[in-house]
């Protein structure tokens, strides 16, 4: 386990990803790192509920959730000052300027790389 990702140990991280297997792989990898995973969840509604319901140290956010764009989730994360990374197939051009500071990880991306990107936040 590299150092950067290791810094996530014990942190509460929300995973928002609509593909079950990808979400599960992330889930497993993050848990193996000692991350306290919140989720994973596949919809905007569930993600918003989880952000509202408790403290978060970080989040990994897929942008397209079964056809619904997850920018509302990103807005709430910004509002709560929760650092997050996008894990998406979309180009930067699709992402609104207000999220310019968020790191975008281009799919396909390994969960370890996501963890590293999140640890840098």
């Amino acid at each position, binding site marked *: 386990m590299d150092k950067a990702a290791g810094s996530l140990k014990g942190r509460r991280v929300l995973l928002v990803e609509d*593909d079950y297997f990808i979400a599960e792989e992330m889930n497993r990898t993050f848990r193996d790192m000692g991350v306290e995973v919140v989720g994973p969840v596949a919809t905007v509604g569930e993600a918003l509920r989880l952000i509202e319901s408790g403290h978060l140290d970080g989040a990994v956010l897929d*942008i397209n959730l079964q056809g619904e764009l997850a920018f509302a989730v990103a807005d709430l994360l910004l509002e709560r000052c929760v650092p997050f990374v996008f894990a998406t197939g979309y180009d930067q051009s699709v992402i609104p300027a207000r999220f310019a500071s968020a790191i975008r990880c281009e*799919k*396909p991306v390994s969960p370890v790389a996501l963890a590293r990107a999140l640890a840098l936040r």
Partner: protein
Amino acid sequence: MNEELQAVNAELKNKLDNISTAHSDLQNLTAATEIGTLFLDEKLRIRMFTPPVVDLFNIAEMDIGRAITDFTNRLSYEEIGSDVARVLRDLTPVESEIRSKDNRWFMMRLRPYRTIEDRISGTVLTFIDITDRVEAEHKLRESERRFRALVQASSQVLYRMSPQWREMRQLSGSGFLSDMRAPNPEWLEHYILPEEQPRVRAAIHEVIADKKPFELEHRVRLPDGATRWTLSRAVPIIDENGEIEEWFGAATDVTAGKVAEEALRGSEESLRLALEVGGLGTWDRDLLTGECIWSANQYRIFGLEVGEAEPSEAAWLECVHPDDLDEVKAAMATARDEHSVFEREFRIQRPDGATRWCFSRGQFYYDREDKPVRMIGVVEDTTERREWSERQQVMVAELQHRTRNLLAVVRSIVGQTIKASGTLEEFRDRLNDRLAALSRVQGLMSRSDKEPITLRALITAELEALGAVTSPERLSVEGPDVPLRNAAVQTLALGLHELATNARKYGALANDAGHLAIEWRSETIDGEAHLVIDWIETGGNARADGDDASHKGYGQELIEKALPYTLGAKTSHELTAGGVRCTIALPMSGPRRVIRDTRDG
């Protein structure tokens, strides 16, 4: 005797009276005609003369009887002596025009003097002043010479026409047109093409009435039958009564210019058409006068009827959307000041309120002092192109998302397949199989703009790939046509693929007797509409949970975990004696609705 004398006297008196009358008649005659007459005898001695001769020969009454050759005459006529001698010898008159030293002209006739008895007794010279006539003749000759020189020197066609243009009096063709030397009433037929004749006639008619100069460009027939263009001008020659005496005209070959002009007009027309076809509007502003020209397209692009507005810079700017106006003005000012090209995309507001996007390019032109004097530009409606380009951007973004997402899915499938495969061969077969399923879904999705993917299409595609439809009696597929949301298709397809593969390998389609029924319907579960799919295998190979546990594991995980997670489905999956019995209930509303509706475009 006295009586006789008296009679003779009376007769004499009568004769004397007659002579006196004759003499006085002669006096009056010579005075009236102003004809100088000089009578000379055989020895050239002056016998008699009339007053006009006095000045010519410097003689007076007392000089009668002296020889005329003793006097220096004021005529340039030194040959008088020899001429008189010749007339007396030959008895034939001499006639010649003689110039005096003060530049007057006289017609001199020298003839023998015959007495009543027909005897020659000297000569008579008469001098008629013809100065005016000679001068007029000179002038005429001079002008005729000049005219001939002009005709010869000129490359122009010169012609003379009768007052009413009924006949052509003369035409010198200068090698361009055939010459016409004698008056000819058929000139129109001869020179002018039939289709041009009405125009020429009309122009003539107009100038004859007003006695105005004639000017017309028309086509003419050449001697070789070819057709050329001439510019013909004629002026009326007016006599002292104010009537037209004749017309004098000149014509030049303007074919080259005309052809160039027509070519120019043709190319202008082509350019106009090209701009029109290209959907470009043009404007041309004279910055000094403020005068503006807009093309028809310029009006149309701005949503105006052609000619509806008076073209001007202000009218143009008025169409620009208020939010973009400052930028457009600034860009124009910059282009003007920096001698650069004005180039801007901006919105316009049409009179009907519609907002459109336009792209415009323009250029300023300057005089020698660098003062902008003219601006020419084009404008193009780019609304559709922009919309199209925006749509394309969205499509490209979606495509990127889909491709990368697909790679992520493939990555995950590879991971899952590796975990469940005992050998590399097994891994290869299963992976290929799953990738093929994934590829089929991609194919359906790429066509989904035109035909929405239906559940039936999805199921049919999977069964066809297995070769299961070759035995249709063992298969029943029942349910309404339901269009599926693209976002839901991939996961559902992968689930159906695992079910079908397993049925083929281990279940109802693995032997010759089994039956597979796939039925779907909508159903309310927990108060929500669901699309419920039943997958019922009967008569297949009975199989135990232990069979190929790893493979079954992926399919089962898909059905039992992935579909609920991703699609919010409620699923059941159980092994029965005849195969698998599986139910998948998918929500028909909410963010994870499986059914395609208007929101899904």
